[in-house]
């Protein structure tokens, strides 16, 4: 109590670190920091000790060694003589491919199912409820296995296509073959290609590498033409709008001018390159030519999309229900049709509620694509995190790289989607 009468001391007391709120937070942080650093230090020293006890080192050099195994679906050149690093990269591309396809398809499915679940049609509503609840409440792994099994059991084998009275036949004018090894669709090839065209080689009986082994230059040229056309079309559109606003008269044939400016350059490029379709045909054991979408890809893609679609359907439904009924009634009062009401009034407002949870569903889908190993889809977990680790015994390095890849992907996706989210967010002032 004597301190009360003492003059305030400017000097610093050790006890202030604990009792003075000015310093206390600092103390807590420093203590926490020291504890965390100590924990990390322990982990690292343990790892070093354990590694040396096992006679292992920490070295990423194995990525440069010959892999020795084959990967069926490869978007870039790869053979069993390539390195483990390249195998990992092939896996990364496969993961990204299935994640992208899955996100697109899941969104479409989810929006349709979410809207249909609110349908006035009783049976459709119930059917969508069954779909949503069924997929939400059964583990994804089971769905992947089941869909894979349905496809292998339910589709005809390639050899059923053989012979005069074949049990199965190709659909869409002999261009698409649906088999239990996957779906073969025609591939676009360029007869007057700029670069070396790998597809001609594929026609000699060597099965087509995968999803098209295309020559990069051709597609780049095509894309440039297409984007150029779209830009020109935009310019024409702006010109037309300016003219309409100035004179009140819409320039005649504006739509056709814009359409032509998009289609013509791209079509010219295609004709100049001599575009044709490479149809799949049955040769030997399998179909050759065309693009082979493997069953593992399709099963994983469908399962991921259906599963995530069920979650998105719930999100969409909640989003639509969050738009107040007055909005719907007001738009009906304005004489809008039901479809216009949905597209112009309800969905744009619902989007703000829908987007944030949608982002986390995309993230989930990307992460869930690691279940690929259930169907033997060669994603990054199966190449880098599976066969490579298994053949080289480099668990620590392999798992670290794998974790880093998934983490980076997740962060990038959430960053991109957050930017989008901020752009559609209600601007509050």
């Amino acid at each position, binding site marked *: 109590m004597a301190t009360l009468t003492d003059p305030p001391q400017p000097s610093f007391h050790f006890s202030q670190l604990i009792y003075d709120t000015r310093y206390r937070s600092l103390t807590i942080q420093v203590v926490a920091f020291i504890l965390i650093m100590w924990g990390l230090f322990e982990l690292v020293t343990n790892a070093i000790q354990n590694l040396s006890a096992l006679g292992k080192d920490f070295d990423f050099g194995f990525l440069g060694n010959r892999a020795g195994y084959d990967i069926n679906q490869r978007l870039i050149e790869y053979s069993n003589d390539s390195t483990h690093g390249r195998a990992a990269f092939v896996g990364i591309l496969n993961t990204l491919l299935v994640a992208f396809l899955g996100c697109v398809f899941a969104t479409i499915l989810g929006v349709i199912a979410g809207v249909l679940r609110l349908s006035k049609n009783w*049976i*459709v509503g119930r059917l969508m409820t069954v779909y949503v609840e069924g997929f*939400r409440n*059964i583990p994804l792994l089971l769905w992947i*296995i089941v869909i894979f099994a349905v496809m292998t059991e339910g589709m005809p084998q390639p050899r059923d296509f053989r012979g005069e009275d074949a049990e199965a036949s190709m659909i869409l004018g002999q261009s698409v073959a649906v088999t239990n090894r996957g779906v073969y669709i025609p591939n676009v090839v360029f007869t007057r290609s700029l670069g070396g065209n790998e597809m001609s080689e594929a026609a000699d009986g060597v099965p087509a590498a995968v999803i098209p082994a295309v020559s990069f230059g051709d597609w780049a040229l095509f894309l440039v033409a297409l984007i150029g056309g779209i830009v020109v079309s935009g310019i024409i559109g702006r010109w037309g709008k300016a003219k309409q606003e100035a004179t009140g008269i819409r320039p005649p044939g504006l739509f056709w001018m814009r359409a032509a400016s998009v289609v013509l350059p791209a079509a010219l490029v295609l004709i100049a390159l001599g575009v044709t379709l490479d149809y799949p045909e049955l040769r030997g054991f399998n179909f050759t030519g065309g693009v082979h979408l493997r069953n593992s890809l399709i099963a994983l893609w469908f399962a991921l999309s259906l599963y995530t679609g069920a979650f998105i359907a719930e999100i969409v439904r909640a989003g639509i229900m969050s738009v107040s009924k007055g909005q719907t009634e007001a738009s009906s009062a304005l004489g809008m049709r039901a479809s216009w009401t949905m597209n112009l009034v309800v969905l744009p407002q619902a989007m703000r509620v829908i987007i944030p949870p949608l982002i986390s569903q995309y993230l989930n889908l990307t*992460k869930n694509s690691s279940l690929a190993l259930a169907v033997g889809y060669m994603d990054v977990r199966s190449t880098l995190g599976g066969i490579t680790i298994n053949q080289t015994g480099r668990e620590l390095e392999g798992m670290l790289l794998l974790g880093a890849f998934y983490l980076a992907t997740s962060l990038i996706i959430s960053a991109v989607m957050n930017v989008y989210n901020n752009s559609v967010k209600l601007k509050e002032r």
Partner: protein
Amino acid sequence: MSELHSETALDTAYVRTEMLPEQTPPVTVSGPIKWARENLFSSVWNALMTIISIYVIYVVLVAILPWMLNGIWDAGSLNECREIRDARGGSGEHGHDVACWAVLVDRWDQLMFGFYPSDLYWRPILALALFLTAIAPVLYDSLPRKMLILTALMPFLCFWLLWGGSIWTPIVVALGFVLGWAVVKFGEGTLGSMLATIGAILVPILFWMYLTGPLISGLHSILPIGIQAVESRAFGGFLLAFVIGASGIILSMPLGVILALGRQSDLFIINKCSVIFIEVIRGVPLIVWLFTAQLLLGYFLPPGSNFDLMVRVIIMVTLFSSAYIAEVIRGGLAALPRGQYEGADSLGLNYWQSMQLIILPQALKISIPGIVSSFIGLFKDTVLVVFIGLFDPIGFSNAIRADTDWNGIYWELFIFIGLCFFICCFGMSRYSQYLERKLATDHR
């Protein structure tokens, strides 16, 4: 009006004088037909959808129902099933014309309990009953609050029932919590809240690290009460899924609360560490974490130490779900009106007091639906342990198919497993929806 009517009635014979008897409405606007018109065929588009839907349902049912309903329940192996089927004359061009449910009868115990000793099945069942009773007061407000004592005891009791061994193990471990509580209770006056809090964390940890082992063995030698110990390797099937899922959620709750508070904290380092932990855990798929538990956790532990695989998986699943729980609770914290925080401050409560007395009780209550959803997700994700060699239901489906008796069986097992998961998860999600509706009205 009636006067006029009666007058005109006299000279106009074609006007009726008595009321017509009430007639039933035409069939098209009443009963099932009206319902069908309004709900199924209100427009061309709707009619088309209805017809397509009915066709889809028909095709699916025709494909599945006969196969399921004619299933064979009484056989010792797949070959016996095939013989019975052929004897019935049901053999068609396909291998499986009817389901062979007999595999479920034959392997029921394994699918449910794994290798758990069969004379001890009452223990997991009792533990499940205890678990359900203990979480009931958390889930339903109307139950007496006294039951929360049971909730606090439940983890220790369930642990003891499932793994068995000396009764002193759970008691002594629980004693650690009592010690921590005692430090807060009696130390606050003398030491000040800050030191008391630190003490409440440190004392139990030191107790567990140095005193627990000798105390348990000492007490056990004095008073040996115990039940038969069961290795965690014996756990399997749905028991394994439940144990991993439930312990993951229960153990991750406290960690999740701390992470959520850390993420909301103004303290820079604590905030950033929580964010990094949460984002790293959430950014990487569970299966990679499980492989980490299997392949790498040994590297990071002190040399020579070795947890068994199930404990490693539970540790990993706990860390994993704590990041998700943290996000759920953060949502709950953010949903509280700002006035609650300010009110707590204005009462002069310090941080821990305001959290303990005002903020967390409310935030946790509104987080319960989210926590239940996390649990559903985690429960479904437990099937991933099949990839690291644990025998969850899917793992058993592989092992069963490796037995010569049942090699070649397929759909029956997956349908059964899927159905079990569906029943559990659907029940839980219904509950969470009910709760959401209830909480939604509370806050209006």
